């Protein structure tokens, strides 16, 4: 144990490499979070539809992405999609598409549960005022459903941020990938991955605490 000579100084001297990776981690996490939330809302709406033509495809989509590992999804979008569509897919695009779809699938289920949790009387009150479906959703159902699902969505974004490290496997230059590069270059994997882990911990733990506080606050206003 004592034989190992820890040297964090060399890591700190190359911190800019990791910082660059962290920036790309935020980029992929934020972009696939926002896009996934929007697509997820549409999918969730389709899932709730009484029309089989809408609900069935959405259900298939959701189940595929919920029941395959995210790593496999990333690999598939990077290696299989270019051949199927006969076009170039950059590591960012592959990671973005797979994480977005993955996030959309899980978000769809959260939306669905949130919308289902709104009492029937709320729908009827809106209808009785003459609201059409879209107005009803926008003014009555979603504001209440989203409030109830915010804790689930903050958990989702923590989960998604953690998942972005998988994008390192297709050479997308996010934090994990930069860490791997650096460790090959400096031969200091122990210090480097300790630092990488610490950075992830700080971001994700902050997110978790934030989510807990939000949950407490929301439950208080009820």
């Amino acid at each position, binding site marked *: 144990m004592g034989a190992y000579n820890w040297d964090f100084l060399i890591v700190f001297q190359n911190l800019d490499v990791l910082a660059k990776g962290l920036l790309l981690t935020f980029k992929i996490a934020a972009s696939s979070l926002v896009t996934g939330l929007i697509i997820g809302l549409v999918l969730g709406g389709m899932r709730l539809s009484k029309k089989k033509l809408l609900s069935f495809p959405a259900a298939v989509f959701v189940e595929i992405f919920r029941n395959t590992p995210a790593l496999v999804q990333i690999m598939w979008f990077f290696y299989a999609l270019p051949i199927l569509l006969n076009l170039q897919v950059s590591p960012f695009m592959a990671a973005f598409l797979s994480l977005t779809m993955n996030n959309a699938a899980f978000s769809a289920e959260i939306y669905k549960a949130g919308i289902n949790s709104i009492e029937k009387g709320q729908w009827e009150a809106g209808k*009785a005022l003459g609201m059409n479906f879209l107005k009803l959703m926008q003014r009555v159902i979603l504001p*209440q459903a989203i409030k109830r699902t915010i804790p689930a969505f903050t958990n989702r974004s923590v989960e998604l941020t953690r998942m972005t490290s998988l994008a390192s496997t297709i050479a997308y230059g996010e934090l994990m990938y930069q860490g791997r590069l650096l460790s090959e270059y400096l031969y200091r994997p122990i210090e480097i991955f300790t630092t990488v882990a610490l950075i992830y911990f700080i971001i994700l733990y902050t997110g978790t605490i934030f989510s807990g506080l939000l949950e407490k606050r929301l439950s208080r206003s009820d």
Partner: protein
Amino acid sequence: MESVLRIEGLHKSFDDLHVLKGIDLNIEKGDIVAIIGSSGSGKSTLLRCINFLEMPSKGRIYFKNKLIGNEIKKKNRKPQIKYKESQLCKVRTHIGMVFQQFNLFPHMTAIENVMEGLKSVLKIDKSTAKKKAKEKLEMVGMMEKADIYPSRLSGGQQQRVAIARSLAMDPEVMLFDEATSALDPELVGEVLKTMEDLSSTGMTMLIVTHEIEFAYTVSNHVIFIHEGIIHEQGTPKEIFSNPKRQRTKEFLAGFRHFEN
């Protein structure tokens, strides 16, 4: 008199359960109709069919002498009525509905609840909507609570705000679906008072209720529904003082026990 609502041969089934078995009814402007009957008789379903929260299985509903929906005639088939969502939305703006469970929007204050339909359905600008909402809140005696959220209001107060919310749309007719049944006994009076005040303004009202005394004093027409049909109808005096049919007598006898 001018007909506001006319119902012809209305049927409603839920799967195998035949709830309404042919209702005919004409409501004229200014009518105050009390609908009474035991639980499960179909009186709430009738009300909910009138503003299409339930879709009629058969029959026609006319609003101001105009058929709601489009009648489709095919050769050798009975004519069918198709309803378009946009048309139903439009009709509903003219028909106010007050629910047993109030159903206020919990994420909006009292006044925001009243303004909501004005703003998002009738597209009235915010300041005009606010002015109108204040007027209606004043009318139901809830102006001091304008900025309070529903969760901080009593049941009776919530129901009065719900009445103001419907009134703000300037409906041609108001439907009350057991508006006081979910209230604690001491809160029933304030809501009945509000409804009584409303009746004196000339508003056309359809009231499903278990408050027999209220029906007696406020309505000008009483309908007793039994097993999905109008079993007996008439003026309050005819129905309450001198019911003709056996089932009506039995139903009313259940209430008589509590009178002096």
